């Protein structure tokens, strides 16, 4: 703050005062009032509060740049001479001459062709004289009387008419509807008649020319089919709104059926897979023993469980799995570094189930051994006589009547099983429910259930077929 500011604030004119200090101060601003007023007129414009503000900003004040933002389109400076466009004539085809605008000078040599002439391509329709026509139309019966072939439809056509037809075809490039429209020769003829005749003649023409032409079959025109097709189309187009609605409803229905069919198909596949899982081409001998049966049963069971899991399970998130793995690893590392006891403890927990399983297995084995030991003194015959068996399986302890342990099924299935049993002349309760009889009887029941299941699926399949038909 300079002294002038004080005067400024106090509204005191300080011109005289400054002149007093002249020469003593080295400050160039306050050196002389006249010098300040004359030499720094720009600087003096910034006074009072404004100057204070500038002081606050410090030395490096950002420059205020004023940018002119009005941009105009550049002026066009084309020095080329304007090219001439002329209205000239050209020949569209050999009949018509038209005019259009073209760039450049007028051509000297007459009326030029259109640039699009190269696209003006016409079909090559065969041409022939009357003699040729007669010769290829009836090659064998040329010499014989024409009465025989008179009843054929194509011979109602005179050569003149054929020529007329071919002329039209050439002219309208086989645009059949146009040809049919323009056709005006003798009696009324249908579009199909014209087409048939044309292709017939063409076929014979080319056949006479080259019998081995492989493309000849393309000229085969079947009038009946074409007429039929048009009839169908006509009927299709003349349906009423109600009919269309009904049709749509039917289509939706059929789609529903298709969906259901797809579903059952997949179901059936899974069943077939189930049926095939014990490889059917292998011998059944290995499953004949009770051990084999148990193994087969376990196989099927695990197979089933796996499949169901696979079908119902939400697809695993691989990322989650990985994360879990990481977490586990970290856990392990932590434990290894940490307390050994904790480690053992958790390991124990983890292996508890395994250990338990192993223990029960051991126990079972021990039990079986013990039972075997008890029975050691008896040979097979004696064992049979005593009615004692070491089955080695875990069954609920206690006493029961053997006949009460025959498998039963759900009521609906049970009825079917009973029916099958009656069909094959078997009692629902074996007359002698002894150990061996029941063993076999159980097997029989299992097969019957399989049979019923198969029957059910076959019936379902038949029903579906009937529906789709």
């Amino acid at each position, binding site marked *: 703050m300079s002294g002038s500011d004080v005067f400024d604030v106090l509204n005191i004119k300080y011109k005289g005062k400054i002149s007093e200090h002249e020469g003593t101060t080295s400050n160039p601003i306050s050196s002389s009032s006249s010098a300040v007023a004359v030499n720094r007129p720009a600087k003096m414009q910034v006074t009072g509060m404004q100057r204070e503000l500038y002081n606050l900003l410090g030395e490096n004040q950002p420059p205020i740049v004023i940018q002119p933002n009005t941009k105009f389109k550049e002026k066009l400076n084309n020095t080329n001479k304007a090219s001439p466009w002329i209205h000239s004539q050209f020949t569209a085809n050999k009949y018509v001459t038209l005019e259009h605008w073209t760039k450049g000078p007028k051509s000297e040599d007459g009326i030029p062709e259109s640039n699009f002439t190269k696209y003006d391509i016409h079909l090559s329709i065969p041409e022939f004289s009357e003699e040729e026509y007669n010769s290829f139309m009836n090659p064998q019966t040329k010499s014989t009387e024409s009465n025989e072939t008179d009843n054929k439809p194509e011979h109602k056509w005179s050569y003149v008419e054929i020529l007329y037809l071919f002329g039209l075809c050439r002219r309208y490039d086989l645009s059949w509807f146009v040809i049919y429209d323009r056709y005006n020769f003798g009696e009324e003829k249908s579009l199909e008649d014209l087409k048939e005749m044309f292709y017939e003649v063409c076929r014979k023409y080319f056949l006479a020319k080259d019998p081995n032409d492989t493309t000849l079959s393309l000229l085969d025109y079947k009038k009946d089919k074409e007429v039929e097709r048009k009839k169908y189309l006509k009927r299709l187009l003349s349906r009423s709104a109600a009919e269309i609605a009904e049709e749509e409803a039917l289509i939706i229905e059929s789609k529903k059926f298709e969906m259901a069919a797809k579903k059952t198909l997949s179901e059936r596949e899974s069943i077939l897979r189930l049926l095939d899982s014990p490889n059917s081409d292998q011998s059944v001998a290995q499953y004949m023993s009770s051990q084999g049966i148990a193994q087969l049963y376990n196989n099927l069971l695990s197979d089933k469980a796996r499949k169901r899991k696979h079908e119902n399970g939400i697809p695993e998130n691989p990322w989650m799995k990985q994360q879990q793995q990481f977490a586990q690893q970290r856990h392990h590392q932590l434990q290894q570094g940490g307390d050994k006891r904790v480690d053992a403890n958790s390991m124990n927990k983890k292996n508890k189930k395994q250990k338990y399983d192993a223990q029960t297995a051991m126990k079972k084995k021990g039990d079986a051994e013990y039972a075997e030991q008890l029975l050691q003194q008896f040979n097979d015959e004696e064992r049979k006589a005593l009615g*004692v068996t070491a089955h080695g399986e875990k*069954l609920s302890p206690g006493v029961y009547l053997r006949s009460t342990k025959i498998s039963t099924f759900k009521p609906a299935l049970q009825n079917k099983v009973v029916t099958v049993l009656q069909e094959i002349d078997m009692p629902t309760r074996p007359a002698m*429910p002894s150990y061996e009889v029941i063993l076999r009887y159980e097997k029989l029941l299992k097969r019957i259930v399989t049979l019923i299941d198969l029957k059910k699926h076959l019936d379902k399949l038949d029903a579906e077929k009937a529906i789709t038909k």
Partner: protein
Amino acid sequence: MAPVVSKRIKTLSVRRPILYGNTAKKLGEIRPANAPVEHTHLWTIFIKGPQNENISYFIKKVVFKLHETYPNPTRVIEHPPFELTETGWGEFDINVKIYFVDEANEKMISFYHRLRLHPYTMSATGTKLPGTDITITESGEVRSIFYDEVVFNEPNENFFKILMSTPGNLLPSNKTEDCIFSKQLEREEIDRIDMAMEKVDKEIEELKQKLAVGITE
């Protein structure tokens, strides 16, 4: 009836075949004195071994529960032979309860037997069609006898010793008129089941093929 504490022998089972059923005869001129007038038949229900051997070493008592119209319908037979003779005019289900000896430490088993008085199956005299349970002997006695096996699964050691000390599973080797349940019948049964199994297997194969064809179509 102190419970015998004894370890069960795991993974081992002992079977004892028994026959149960009833015989019935029309009441002739000789009638038991106390028989009501309307009673027409004299019948006997029994539990016995296949060759009438002693079964009391494992069966303690048998309780027959008769139709409620009988006086004292619950009849307890505590000594062999385990049979009960009564007169009656109608057929009904008899509840049979077999109690085992104390050493066995097993629960009783209970089942029903339908008393048969009339030979409904019109088979020839004395012949028994497999699957039908009623026979009629030449003397006109109606029989409805079943074979079954009492299975002691995992018996305790004491009881096992008792069972092992008595051979108990002796079936006659051949059928006799008196008792058809024999090794011979067992063999026949097995053969019949095997044959039936073949039939079913064949049908399964046929159906499998049909199904395969049907699906590929």
